[in-house]
């Protein structure tokens, strides 16, 4: 897809696609997304932006974008159908109000014009606390769900629902559908009513079994009060009184008939069309406002998992100073040294190994060589009077390092024969067995013998 086509995708659609991808990944496991992730990283922006970009790329790859367009078309068709239904409903309501027995019972007519609408409005208000939307909204959703049950459409519907829910858009979105439906229906009723009243002569009357005429006067004036403020005619008290079925002023008197017709139209406009129009506007406003505040909930697990891939907390910078090829350890030629006596020396010991151990008389203790000065001294001493046998004790629990190995090598070259005594750790100390092997390996490369038991016999007699 070309970049210009990408820009056509609105922010809302981006969120919708992201939600669709999220749901399908949540239920069907992660997608192969290395390319999409790379593109999202390259596009930059905040984590949320990158999630949206990634989803868009995946959606393009999987043909979701086209499916979204189709879904929208189906939804549009369904809206059109709903609109036709509304017009039909309005016409029917108006017809039912005026046709039938003559003269027209004004309160019956008003009831059939506004009754269903007011009842639906009541239901909508009650369900407002929940998702809102009422029967018409649900009917529309169900219809759209029906027509796009297969392929991608099946995932787009639930995703839209889930997205609207989380963003708090459901009540506004469905509200728009519901109120637009009723506004259309009531406008259609108004048009039908106007046409019928223009083309035919209707007489109006009221009748009662239980109530007094005064109650009707009050009721009529109460209902007509608001419309009259907008200029709709309001039958005066005498007209109302004279319009009962027996006196028949609403049928005979021209002015009374017009007053009643105006009263009916005014009530339809003020109690039907105006509230629906206001609610429609309110829902449209709420929708726009919430839409502006549409954000991605980055803590949803399906998104949180993506964080390290889209906005890595750390990235390797690569090797800046490569390792040299491993040099072959130079085997210094071991000079032949006769030497005299036996000597025991320790390197890098701590208080865990009490030093020195009990030594036979013939064996000299050369102490511990740790500091540079001690090492230097020891090397001097060995150069001056090399021993025939030298045992070097060390703690194999320390890691092998070049410095220590070099020292051991130098010491060994200054004696007739040398052995490294790998001390056994006290029982309470954690022993890493692999270290033993590493020491033995390193020392055998230097051709130095190792021993794990005290080499006193060897030091004393030259053999084990």
């Amino acid at each position: 897809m070309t970049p210009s086509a990408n820009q056509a995708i609105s922010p809302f659609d981006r969120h919708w696609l992201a939600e669709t991808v999220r749901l399908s990944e949540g239920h069907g496991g992660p997608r192969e997304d290395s390319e999409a992730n790379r593109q999202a990283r390259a596009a930059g922006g905040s984590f949320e932006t990158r999630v949206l970009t990634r989803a868009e790329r995946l959606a393009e790859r999987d043909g979701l974008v086209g499916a979204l367009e189709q879904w929208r078309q189906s939804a549009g068709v369904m809206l059109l159908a709903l609109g036709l239904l509304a017009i039909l409903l309005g016409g029917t309501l108006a017809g039912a109000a005026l046709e039938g027995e003559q003269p027209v019972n004004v309160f019956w007519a008003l009831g059939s014009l506004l009754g269903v609408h007011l009842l639906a409005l009541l239901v909508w208000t009650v369900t407002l606390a929940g998702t809102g939307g009422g029967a018409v909204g649900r009917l529309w959703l169900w219809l759209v769900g029906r027509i796009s049950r297969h392929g991608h459409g099946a995932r787009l519907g639930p995703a839209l629902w889930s997205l609207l829910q989380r963003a708090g858009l459901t009540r506004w979105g469905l509200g728009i559908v519901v109120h637009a439906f009723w506004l259309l229906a009531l406008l259609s009723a108004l048009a039908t009513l106007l046409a019928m009243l223009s083309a035919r002569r209707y007489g109006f009357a009221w009748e009662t079994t239980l109530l007094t005429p005064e109650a009707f006067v009050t009721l009529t004036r109460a209902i007509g009060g608001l419309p009259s403020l907008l200029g709709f005619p309001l039958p005066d008290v005498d007209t109302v009184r004279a319009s009962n079925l027996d006196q028949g002023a609403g049928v005979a008197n021209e002015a009374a008939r017009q007053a009643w017709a105006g009263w009916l139209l005014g009530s339809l406009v003020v109690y039907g069309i105006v509230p629906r129009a206001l609610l429609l506007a309110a829902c449209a406003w709420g929708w726009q406002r919430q839409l502006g505040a549409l954000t991605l909930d980055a803590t949803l697990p399906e998104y949180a998992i993506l964080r390290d891939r889209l906005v890595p907390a750390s990235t390797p910078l690569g090797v800046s100073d490569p390792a040299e090829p491993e040099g072959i350890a130079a085997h210094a030629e071991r000079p032949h040294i006769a030497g005299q006596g036996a000597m025991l020396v320790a390197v890098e010991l701590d208080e865990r190994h009490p030093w020195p151990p009990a030594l036979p008389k013939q064996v000299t203790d050369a102490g511990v060589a740790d500091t540079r000065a001690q090492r230097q001294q020891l090397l001097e001493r060995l150069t001056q009077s090399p021993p025939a046998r030298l045992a070097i004790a060390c703690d194999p629990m320390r890691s092998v390092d070049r410095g220590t190995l070099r020292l051991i090598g130098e010491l060994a070259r200054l004696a007739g024969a040398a052995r490294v005594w790998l001390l056994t750790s006290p029982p309470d100390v954690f022993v890493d067995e692999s270290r033993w092997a590493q020491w033995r390996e390193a020392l055998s490369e230097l051709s130095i013998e190792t021993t794990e038991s005290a080499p006193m016999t060897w030091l004393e007699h030259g053999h084990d």
Partner: protein
Amino acid sequence: MTEPLRLAVVGHTNVGKTSFLRTLMRDAAFGEVSSRASTTRHVEGASLQIEGQPALELFDTPGLEDAMSLLDYLEQLRRPGERCDGPALLTEFLRGTEAQHRFAQETKVLRRLLASDAGLYVIDARESVLPKYLDESQILSLCGKPLFPVLNFVASSDNRAEEWREAMARRGLHALLSFDSVAPPVDGEKRLYQSLALMLPDAGPTLERLIVDREAQAAARRRSACRLIAELLIDVAALRQRVAAEPEAVEQAVGAMRRRVREREQQCTDALLRLYGFRQEDAVTGELPLADGRWQDDLFHPETLKQLGVRVGGGLAAGTAAGAGLDLMVGGITLGAGTILGGLAGGVSRAGRQFSVRLLGKLRGARQLSVDDAILAALALRQRQLLRALEARGHAAQQPVSLNAPKDDWLRGKLPPPLATARAHPEWSSLDERPDLEQANRQAQVGALAEEIKGSVD
């Protein structure tokens, strides 16, 4: 955007420099780690980022191995009577031939430290303070860069942190940091950055932002993890399957159901590992109680439940079918009367159609199979333990994590209400044939359950 702070991670060989970096990066794949000395023989950089913007650059360096000889050599280079100017001396040394040969490894370290803003001198706190280590710190000090000793492995019982503290103080290095890269304390990373911010005031704001970002991410990760576990539990609690009365049919269905539950648990485990940045193929996860990211102990084995401290009934503990009727126990799965009643209630509230199907099914002798409470509790406890283990685990850890019976009383006795609600809604299970997962009520219950899990982890 200011230049990121550049820190060289230096130290003796085999003290865990690469591990330290791995843990800070949350990336178990960085560099190479082994118990052998001189595993890292090159300089490798890593950038810590905030929302994609580099904040901190860390450089892993080879270990110092022969500080004593180098110090001897440097003293040779120094002309007698001259005042000691560390960086100048080192520059002269780096120009010489020995720097390329005998001290090639040390050269890399010094070159890197000279090019950085400061050095983190990693110390294995279990080691005794040997003269060679002190010589090392002396050479590093010659670079003229702020040097912060970092005591690694302080979680170990036989550490000598105090000795090191004193020895470093004698060398004028008072700003000691503690950080265990294998078992980092909960706020270890934060304390590390805070200490650094105190000592490097210029980098203070950046480090502050890094702290805030890392904390926010940790909180978000935990929230997501709890949600993943909640989804798993709701899926399994809601799972229900109709099965004919014949024993073979029951047995077959039980097997199939167990398989599906195990697979679902695995899916959650995989997601948790992904969330915490551990990959299945990492050697590190091989040492979790998972082999290649799979649980070793079977969820439906009585021993597993016992280990997790889940109390089970006689039939389940024995692992055999006990009796017949509505409370028939089959392996880990019970046909509870409560489940059936719950199912009926759910059916009524949903649609008359389902109700009649279910009732008809009952009359025909078909029954409902659902997952037992004990299994649900075991699932919840096990995943929570995994979550805790993953949170507490540095990306450098190579020792196994042991999963023991939990010490608190979470899930002893009663299961959380969302699970009871889910029992009545088979369509809430993603394992159902016709799942309906985006229902507002289901989402609310998942949210409530996730909160409860989070409460028990916090």
